[in-house]
């Protein structure tokens, strides 16, 4: 029973990180129509920012620095890569996004080497409840992701800026003709999504270490999450992320560690067979 509770706690933590990255993907895909495969690699770079700056300025300031640095990287990527490809074929954008993954991984490999780097947590120690040990940093991860989710929900639903972002996501042409600078909105969303990826990487680094390939499984799982959830809902993405985290954690414990990635993929396939629009996806009629 303790093992089950322990693995469920781990699954929620894992799901929180996947959820944060999935929310970034939903935001960016919703507004820019770009499957930003490089977000996982950008999160990995965020982990290295915390690794580098944490010992000097402390964890929290380094986490903020990771958000700023990766947000700035997102701005550069949007300006130099995706904006010029605005009218390019989908496959070109796909290849560009994959190219970015290779570039970022290569950079990390050249600068930091292949070995994992240990990153100290935000708070040391663990909370023990009924024999279940939960590191304080893991609680921080769950709390921060929930706070980010609630803040995003508020911005998107209750502010004018949020409605403008949703408008651009629904009809770029319609948004332009009522005076919305869609290019600037897209730029801002890419920066926001990238900064949140930096946050995800900075949060994850203390529990998984900083290493060049750390972003791969993040990206794969975040895409599984948004396919499982159905595109368009950040709330649905977060719930689906918890499900994926739990399935992965429990599957690795009770079935086999070797196939931990496979369980969530199988779940995704089953859901797609039963409900092709995803767990929370709705058929949206176009006007």
């Amino acid at each position, binding site marked *: 029973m303790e093992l089950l509770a322990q693995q469920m706690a781990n699954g929620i933590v894992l799901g929180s990180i996947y959820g944060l990255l999935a929310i970034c993907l939903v935001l960016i895909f919703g507004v820019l129509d770009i499957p930003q495969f490089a977000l996982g690699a950008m999160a990995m770079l965020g982990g290295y920012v915390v690794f580098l700056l944490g010992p000097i300025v402390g964890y929290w300031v380094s986490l903020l620095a990771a958000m700023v640095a990766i947000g700035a990287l997102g701005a550069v990527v949007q300006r130099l890569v995706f904006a010029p490809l605005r009218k390019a074929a989908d496959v070109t954008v796909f290849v560009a996004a994959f190219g970015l993954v290779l570039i970022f991984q290569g950079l990390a490999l050249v600068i930091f080497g292949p070995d994992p780097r240990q990153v100290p947590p935000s708070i040391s120690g663990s909370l023990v409840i009924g024999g279940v040990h939960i590191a304080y940093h893991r609680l921080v991860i769950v709390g921060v992701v929930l706070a980010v989710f609630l803040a995003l929900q508020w911005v998107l639903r*209750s*502010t*004018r*800026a949020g*409605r*403008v972002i*949703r*408008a651009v996501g*629904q*009809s770029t*042409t*319609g*948004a*332009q*003709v*009522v*005076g*919305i*600078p*869609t*290019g600037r909105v897209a730029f801002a969303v890419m920066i926001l999504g990238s900064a949140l990826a930096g946050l995800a990487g900075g949060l994850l680094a203390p529990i998984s270490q900083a290493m060049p390939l750390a972003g791969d499984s993040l990206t794969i799982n975040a895409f599984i999450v948004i396919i499982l959830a159905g595109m368009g809902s950040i709330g649905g993405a977060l719930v689906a992320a918890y499900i994926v985290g739990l399935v992965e954690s429990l599957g690795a414990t009770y079935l086999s560690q070797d196939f931990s990635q496979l369980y969530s993929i199988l779940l995704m396939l089953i859901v797609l067979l039963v409900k092709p629009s995803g767990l929370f996806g709705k058929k*949206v*009629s*176009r*006007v």
Partner: protein
Amino acid sequence: MTEALTLRDVDRRFGGLKAVDSVSMTVSEGEIFGIIGPNGAGKTTLFNLISGNVSTMSGAIELYGRRIERMPVHRRARLGLGRTFQTSQLFAGVTVHENLEIAEVSSRRGVGGWLGSPTARRTVEAERVDLEAWDLADKGERLAGELTLFEQQRLALAMTLAAGARVLLLDEPSGGLVESEVHQLMELIRGIRDRGVTVLVIDHKMRLMMQLCDRIMVMALGAVITTGDPTEIAADARVRELYFGRAPVRGVERNERTGGPDPADAHTWRAGPTS
């Protein structure tokens, strides 16, 4: 009379096809200006050039004397150029109120105008857009995607005014509407003009155009054939040839050669029913 919109020698080519060929025109403030022509005449491309959805290759476009042909779409919109499309470009997943609010908010300069709670709606929206006037009073909380075609059309018109349009481009506004709705639409467009908004309209329903427009420009193969008031247009031999061939035949449903717009007889364009 103030010139609201002026085009001088505007050109647009797609590969070897001259979609818009050296078009010049002037529309006065408060005018309802129609553009007609067979399919492929370049009417919608001309609208796209004016609104900025397609860029010009040469020529000048002026909105109230200001050159706009190099401006992006959103800047033209902020200068008062509104537009509706043949295929609705409403924000289907949000409510009627939210659609209007997005249009109203976006007309403000800078991100500063976008911050703040939407519940604190400025009175501007209430002044500019009275939902009752658009017969949408009980639809405020409905999703735009759930509205009927005519309701969507009315919402699209209301949104252009909420966004502060002074010159409005209407592309096939009567498309898919039934007879009674076309009559209502005509009254709505006249009402918009009465607010001081200049209206340019493309439509294939010829009687609607003849009854609604102050002047009409006829296009074919990207070029302007003639411009005049509806009576002149109905009597113009080149226009009659364009739509009916050399000898007008009563009762012909559609001109097969030109893909002409309407089964209407030129003699009844102005006085007859709208479809």
